[in-house]
């Protein structure tokens, strides 16, 4: 049996999948086919582990969620993977994790719905920087598939060979030729927007980090001098004050589903914080692990 490679797919695209392929033979691999033509048997992603829930009394079955800027992956691990099931329960939430896992799908008998989930094979705590790298890498992979879907829509008959001939990678050519029969290609626009949002998400984090580094730099400089020109506490106090305002707004409004980024900005402006300051503060709170973003644009406390 040939080893299956791991696809880079955002949670939104993965969860949108409505097609699964099962081999006829007993040991044949099964696949979840996504709207943009990832033919997923294995996938690799980095995101925020937001919760781990024990689903059976003896602790042999757990469900966990890992969020990326576009949505949430659902992970199940059961009695046949006792080590992984135990390991999942040992993580602090939230934390950044990288996951290699197998695709799973569930179709209730009544109705057309399909639920794609992940059986984790490997899970390791990682840094925020690796999460950003994964987002950027996954944007590039997703963009390649969007290109292939667009190319396919201009073809009379869509086959893997036809896509190979115009230069698409073999795995993409195969996957898109299958997906094309099952999905409405108008969906593409939605994913183009998803990619834009995802890159904005990363650069926003980058800017916040740059600001933090600058502040840290100035405070250590002044600390080293004999005559501090400006008391460093002022900066810290201002930060603390802003953080308190923002936290209060989130706590009072988040409910079960969290509160949108825009809503926070609006509410905080009334408290005297401009939008740049709110963005900086939200990012700093996220760095401290006090809040997280379960879905792009929505904030919850941890």
């Amino acid at each position, binding site marked *: *049996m*040939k*080893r*299956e*490679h*791991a*696809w*880079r797919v955002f949670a939104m695209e993965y969860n949108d999948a409505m097609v699964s392929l099962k081999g006829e033979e007993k040991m044949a691999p099964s696949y979840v086919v996504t709207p943009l033509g990832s033919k997923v048997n294995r996938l*690799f992603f*980095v995101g925020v582990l937001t919760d781990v829930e024990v689903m059976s009394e003896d602790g042999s079955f757990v469900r966990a969620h890992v969020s990326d800027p576009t949505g949430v992956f659902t992970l199940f691990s059961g009695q046949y993977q006792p080590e992984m099931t135990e390991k999942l329960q040992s993580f602090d939430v939230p934390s950044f994790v*990288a996951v*290699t896992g197998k695709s799973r799908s569930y179709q209730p008998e009544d109705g057309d719905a399909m639920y794609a989930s992940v059986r984790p*094979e*490997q899970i*390791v705590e*990682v840094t925020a*920087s*690796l999460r*950003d*790298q*994964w987002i*950027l*890498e996954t*944007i*590039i*992979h997703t*963009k390649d598939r*969007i*290109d292939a879907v667009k190319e396919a829509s201009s073809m009379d008959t869509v086959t893997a060979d036809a896509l190979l001939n115009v230069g698409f*990678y*073999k*795995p*993409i050519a195969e996957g898109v030729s299958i997906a094309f029969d099952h999905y409405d290609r108008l969906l593409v626009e939605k994913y*183009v927007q998803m*990619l*834009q949002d995802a*890159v904005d998400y*990363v*650069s926003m984090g*980058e800017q916040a980090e740059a600001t933090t580094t600058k502040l840290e730099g100035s405070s250590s400089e002044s600390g080293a001098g004999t005559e501090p020109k400006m008391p460093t506490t002022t900066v810290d106090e201002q930060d603390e004050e802003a953080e308190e305002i923002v936290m209060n707004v989130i706590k009072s409004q988040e409910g079960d589903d969290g509160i949108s980024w825009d809503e926070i900005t609006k509410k905080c402006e009334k408290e005297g914080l401009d939008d740049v300051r709110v963005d900086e503060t939200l990012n700093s709170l996220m760095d401290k692990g006090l809040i997280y973003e379960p879905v792009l644009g929505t904030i919850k406390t941890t």
Partner: protein
Amino acid sequence: MTNENLNQHAQDILSRLDDQKKKAISAQEVAEELEKFLDYGVPVKQAKQTLLKKFGVNTSVPPGSVERTLLADLQPNTRNVKLVAQVVSINPKEIMVKGQPRTIFSGLLRDESGTLPFTAWDKPAMNEGDIVEIANAYTREWRGKVQLNFGNQVMIEQKEKDALPKETFEPKKVTINEITPLVGTVEMSAKVLSVEEKEIMVDEDKKTMFTGILGDSTGKIPFTAWEDFKLSKESTVHIKGGYVKSFRGMPQVNLDENAEVKKQKKQIKESDIPTRSLHLFELNNKQGMYDVSVSGRVIEIQQGSGIILRCPECNQVLREDGCRVHGKVDGIPDLRIKCVVDDGTGSVKTIMNKDQAERVIGKTMDECKQMNPEELHSLLNESLFARVVSMKGNSLQDFYGSTFLADTIEVVDEDVKSKVDHVRSLLEELE
């Protein structure tokens, strides 16, 4: 008919007899019987047929009653295949059948339509370079490709060179990136990047051969020369009639007495010879690649990574009960990391040796020995999991996929900021 041909036909007949009959009769006797028929003007085919029948071989499908098929037209799961082809290569191969070692033969045939690998359960009566008619072979499907098999019913008959059209023997003009194990005979220009003289024993005779690396503007490939072509390092040569053979799953250019090798004036510059950079799915498609560079993320650190013990006699990794061959021995500790590297299009397995492992985890083997296995495994994950590694080396293909033998391996720290800009410009294409 020459004696040599007569002997060859006798061998053909012998090769189709069962073991008991083979012992009862010598090649000499078969040849004499055959000659009797031939002296009476019986055509060779018919004479062989008659003899086979006499020796009790089922010849219900006589050769000649089936049309010849071109290699390119062969379908899987076909019986009674008849071909006329040249033997490009033939090699013994040791396999295990029901726990017993057994030697089978595999190689490559070519005709005017292309090339095809074959497998024979017994030594077929043919040698490299021979033109042969093969009857009663059969085909199977193996990983989506047609595989030609010679069972015990196969009949092989020597042919003259004109049995195949001239174009069959014309070498194909190729660049190194176009070379696959199935390309057959090639014509190419390349620079000799290295060459080494070796003495080997062939059938108790000492023979000199030359091995090295060739390069052109598309890549590098190993070669073996069975004659002294006075190849010297740094020279650029034009090769006509080298043939490509697969060695440990990697294509290789072979130069024998049929090859023409000339120095050419137009030099290929060493700086123009690239180490090809490939996506991992490209490795999974090919049989094996020489001197390529790849990169991907570590998506699994496998069991058997960390401190291991090796047999002092044979260097094999010890199992719980000692060495498979040498039993209980005092193992020598070693450090290695077995991992799966994946770039989202394909994946390879790779094994980092002690030096590479020490460098990527920033700890010496002695420091690792102080840690318990779980601690060490966590450290390996912390240093490598989800990180990008970039490797240079060779890839081998096996049943499960590709294995990468890395000469160099580096952990790459990607700069998020500059990548954001790159990604933004990519996304502009979508609007």
